């Protein structure tokens, strides 16, 4: 499998800031965030909206192809602490809410600090990774 590490650090913005992205992620809850690269837009919202240390949270997210990219065949979500060089102690499960929209359960940030939330979008032999950085205290 070809793994194209098109990582979109620092591209995480409130949805309202991205012109044309409003249609992606319609129906998700409030506090939506967006991360994008040249192939995909990912719009996501967490429950609870403010992630608390040491408490499980849910991520609802939509993946929207752009620029002729293929629709995703599967998606994965994970998170890691680059400064600590480790990830979560939990492997989230992803279910399809509706076409192009997913729910990830089982995430838990067990330490404070910088976390990179990663979305792997698999289409054909390629995987696009989009990453959203956040600090959780």
């Amino acid at each position: 499998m070809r793994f194209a590490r098109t990582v979109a650090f620092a591209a995480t913005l409130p949805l309202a800031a991205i012109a044309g992205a409003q249609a992606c992620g319609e129906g998700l809850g409030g506090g939506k965030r967006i991360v994008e690269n040249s192939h995909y837009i990912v719009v996501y919202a967490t429950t609870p909206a403010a992630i608390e240390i040491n408490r499980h949270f849910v991520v609802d997210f939509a993946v929207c192809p752009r620029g002729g990219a293929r629709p995703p065949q599967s998606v994965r979500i994970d998170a890691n602490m680059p400064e600590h060089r480790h990830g979560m102690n939990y492997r989230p499960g992803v279910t399809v809410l509706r076409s192009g929209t997913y729910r990830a359960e089982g995430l838990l940030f067990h330490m404070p600090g910088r976390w990179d939330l990663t979305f792997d979008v698999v289409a054909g032999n390629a995987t696009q990774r989009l990453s959203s950085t956040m600090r959780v205290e």
Partner: protein
Amino acid sequence: MSGLPLRLLVAAAVACVVLGATAQPPAVVTFSPEELRRVLSLGPWPPPRRFDASNRVSGNAAAIAFGERLFRDTSLSGNGAIACATCHQPTRAFIDGLPRARGIAIADRNTTTLANVGGQRWYGWDGANDSLWAQSLRPITDAREMNSDFARVAARVRDDPELAARYRAAFSAAPDADDERLAVDAAKALAAYQETLVTGRTPFDDFRDALARGDMVAAARYPLLAQRGVAIFVGSGNCTFCHSGPRLSNGEFHDIGIGFFVEPGRVDPGRHEGIRKLKANRHNLLGAWNDDPARAAPTSTRFVALEHRNFGEFKVPSLRNVARTAPYMHDGSLATLRQVVRHYSQLDEDRLHADGERILKPLGLDQYDVDALVAFLESLSEPAVPAPAR
């Protein structure tokens, strides 16, 4: 790390309104806003009482009394001489004071205190259980601890008139004919009792609450040396990365460079084996023994991941009452709090996993800072032995 810079910051910080212009202001260490937020996150204490939905007798007074009775009952063990209270001694903060637990034989790990044991995500040094009642079954059936079995426990409850009456009072039914079901119920009563073991307030809690309400006069009653320890704990020491929240533990698992050889040629795999046992355990929260019809609790059990780095990881212990629970670490290898602080001060990075935590660095504390951290840790302990909160 030198203690000098922060000592120079010992302030003059406040309370002029209260004291008047000529009075000496109280001495309170100056915390940055981030450090202050971390200090406040270590309370308040005690936390609100929560009941365990997976245990239908959680909070039930009759079950608590039944559980306390069972806790002291040596006849549950294979040799008739070991009770839960043999290792978890109520007059010793629910530990035995030994490096490694001694039941019928010597076990591999240190006895953990049962104070504040309710409401945790994982139980045991390896987190092999996800409920207090399942954890309560483990030592009963462990060959080196109580070396018993479901049949013995069930027979004891069924055949002893007093225990049978206590069972009926707690569960509103006659003792079950099925050995396993009755043993699990006995464990649930034991859990109901242990949930009541909550430590009291400590000098640190008074300091933390004084800071929360901006009462620097009250905060200044907390010894300055301990305040310096707090500053290291939430600041340069980064201790709150793992020792977080009012329990001062994130309830998860880390490798901190303590050796995991139990004896030459035999290792304690810690969390790695704990996850494997958890997944294989018919009494985990995913199974039919969970009394919560909504199955709301087991998110952690569903999604916990087995990783190579889990090898040699052990649970982060709570620091509540820590001065009363020596010796320390999963193998009881450190006899005093001072040795624990020196362990982190002189951490041997070569003993850490290559794929483990990268932020663990030797703290390089000077003598004053060691004294300060020890003073802070001692202030997390209540003055008297905890009494069960009913």
